[in-house]
């Protein structure tokens, strides 16, 4: 309380709302002390626009693809029905994706960057409050105009001018300072992992955490929320690697964390720094491939978009074998038999499956999760629509974390809510941190009586533990 009051009243503090990314621990702590971003947003209402810099950025980065997208839009509005915000907001025409992007980025381009503070606020409200960058609109446009990608680009322009939601300015700052989306150091992480191994060893004798193992097959990379808030996720992952005899390791340096709030914030240099940390760790340890945790934006930032931020022409991460999202690794060990599940323990109640945008629509792993469902559930009910045509959970693109647009996010959750209700299932499998959070929040807001889960706990409930791996008392 004292710290917040101090921030609110301190006339000696440099402005919190500015065009400078947060790159030091001190700056991060100062910003964090401004509860809810009260002072930050008050200052942001008065931040002027560096029009010259904006025009220069456009000249350097706004090329054929997006230029053409904005120019040839036929104003057909086929994109309207594709957008979760349009549907959730009672089909408000102003939520039509084309309208949203033409009145923001389209205007900035037309005016060659000659825009004011109020207009940038409108752009910020739209880019983060009316779009999760799920890219569903782009696959329904006759000209292939990807408005989700354009909103990502717009976020970059806005961020460079200092117009970014409070929590994402902090989030990008976290990655600058910690190479992780939260204030967790590599030492904290390794300690947490080893503590989990100690705790769970009595159930899984021989459970260890191989740290910095050179030449390992897999380098496992996680989301900072796991050591910070959900350490059991780490334990579950370690146990599954242990039970399947995986040759895995974790780095003891930065590069242990693979998410990127910087991507949601539009801080491209930070995205580069973040992903290079992961690749450096992979190269230092000479691992054969990366396996990520059950996270959508981690996969997008590190594997799909990451190679480009790291300057890799082939668009692929390092490693002699393809890098995998957790669901791909799960399917691999299910198919090879390394992970054996007891069919009698399959989920009997109706269960449905979320399709996280970041690795389904935007990375094609549609059939992977479905095949996994055939191993773990008896009564699997697809959402409608599903696969790459499924709707965003409503929490992606940073939406889950932004206080300023919490109301808008809660309205957006209605679409996923209705999809789940329509399946008749009360159990949602959701192998993605943001989707999991969004579904948790939709239950809190709309109380439809559902439960939801990642894959790891389900697998551990159903796994057949080889005899030699059971605790001595059990094996007897």
């Amino acid at each position, binding site marked *: 309380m004292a710290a917040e009051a101090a921030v609110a009243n301190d006339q000696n503090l440099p402005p919190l709302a500015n065009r400078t990314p947060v790159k030091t621990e001190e700056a991060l702590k100062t910003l964090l002390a401004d509860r809810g971003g009260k002072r930050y947003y008050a200052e942001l209402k008065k931040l002027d626009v560096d029009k010259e810099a904006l025009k220069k950025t456009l000249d350097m*980065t706004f*090329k*054929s*693809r997006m*230029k*053409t*997208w904005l*120019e*040839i*839009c*036929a*104003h*057909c*509005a*086929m994109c*309207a*029905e*594709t957008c979760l915000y349009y549907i959730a907001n009672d089909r408000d*025409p*102003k939520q*039509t994706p*084309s*309208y949203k992007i*033409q009145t923001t980025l389209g205007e900035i381009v037309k005016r060659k960057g000659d825009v004011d503070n109020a207009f940038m606020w409108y752009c910020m409200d739209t880019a983060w409050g009316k779009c999760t960058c799920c890219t569903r609109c*782009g*696959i*329904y*446009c*006759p*000209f*292939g*105009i*990807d408005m989700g990608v354009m909103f990502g680009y717009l976020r970059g322009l806005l961020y460079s001018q200092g117009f970014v939601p409070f929590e994402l300015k902090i989030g990008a700052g976290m990655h600058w300072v910690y190479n992780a989306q939260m204030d967790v150091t590599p030492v904290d992480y390794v300690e947490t992992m080893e503590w989990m191994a100690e705790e769970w060893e009595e159930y899984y004798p021989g459970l260890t955490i191989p740290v910095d193992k050179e030449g390992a097959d897999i380098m496992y990379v996680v989301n900072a929320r796991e050591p910070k808030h959900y350490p059991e996720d780490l334990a579950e992952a370690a146990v599954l690697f242990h039970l399947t005899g995986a040759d895995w390791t974790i780095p003891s340096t930065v590069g242990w964390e693979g998410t990127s709030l910087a991507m949601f914030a539009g801080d491209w240099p930070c995205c580069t720094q973040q992903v290079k940390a992961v690749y450096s760790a992979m190269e230092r340890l000479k691992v054969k491939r990366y396996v990520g945790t059950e996270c959508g934006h981690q996969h997008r930032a590190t594997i*799909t*978009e990451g*190679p*480009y*931020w790291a*300057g890799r*022409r*082939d*668009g*692929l991460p390092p490693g002699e074998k393809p890098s995998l999202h957790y669901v791909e690794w799960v399917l691999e060990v299910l198919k090879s038999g390394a992970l054996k599940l007891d069919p009698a323990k399959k989920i009997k109640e109706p269960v449905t499956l979320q399709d996280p945008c970041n690795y389904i*629509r*935007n*990375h*094609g*792993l*549609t*059939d992977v999760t479905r095949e996994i469902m055939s191993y773990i559930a008896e009564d699997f009910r697809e959402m409608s629509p599903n*696969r*790459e*045509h499924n709707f965003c959970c409503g929490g992606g693109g940073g939406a889950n974390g932004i206080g300023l647009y919490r109301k808008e996010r809660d309205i957006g959750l209605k679409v996923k809510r209705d999809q789940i209700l329509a399946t008749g299932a009360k159990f949602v499998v959701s192998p993605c941190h943001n989707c999991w959070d969004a579904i948790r929040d939709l239950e809190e807001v709309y109380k439809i009586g559902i439960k939801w889960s990642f894959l790891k706990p389900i697998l551990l409930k159903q796994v057949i533990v080889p005899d030699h791996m059971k605790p001595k008392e059990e094996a007897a």
Partner: protein
Amino acid sequence: MYEFVSGPLVWISFGIFFIGCLVRVISYIKGLDWAKDRVAYSAKGIPGAVKSIVYWLFPFGSQAWKDNPVFTIGTFVFHLCLLGIPIFLLGHNILWDESWGISWWTLSDSTADWMTLIFFVAAIFLVIRRIVNPNVKLLTTGYDYLIIAIAAAPFVTGYMAYHQWFDYKTILIIHILAGEAMLIAIPFTKLSHFVLFFCSRAQLGMDYGIKRGGRYGRGICW
């Protein structure tokens, strides 16, 4: 006047049309950048590009076309007539034959006549849609109506000329000018989607084919 519009102006307008379209396509391709677009452009993307074009070039190919059946029919009928009538019209074919000695299959005059009326129905449908659909209305500007007018003018005047309404020679000249205006407008206006549809679709197809799932074999199902 007739000699001018059916002589030098034909050369000029077709020249502007061909060169203009070529310039649009070349500058589109030149402006692509693997690092800025974040797509590792390569020949590996060709199947994705083709898939992206083909699913959208035919009615009810993509999910979006299937979800919007009335609009799909209106759009495809409009475009089929827009391209089919001028290319396969007997009256135009005769001119090509006289000038260049080339000729091809033609529509019967009565078929072309009916197609023109169907084209008008489709055009009117598109205009009504712009007025009546609230999402389209919000997006629509005068420019959108102008584009439809530029595209429809050759057909209105062509119909009038064929049926010899008013003074034939005058209407014919206006018709020729309307057609040339449309050709010239194509590279410089939204009518450039004549070529940019293929460019933009190919680009997105490559994006999905290389980066967003195509490497895993299945790629996106449009």
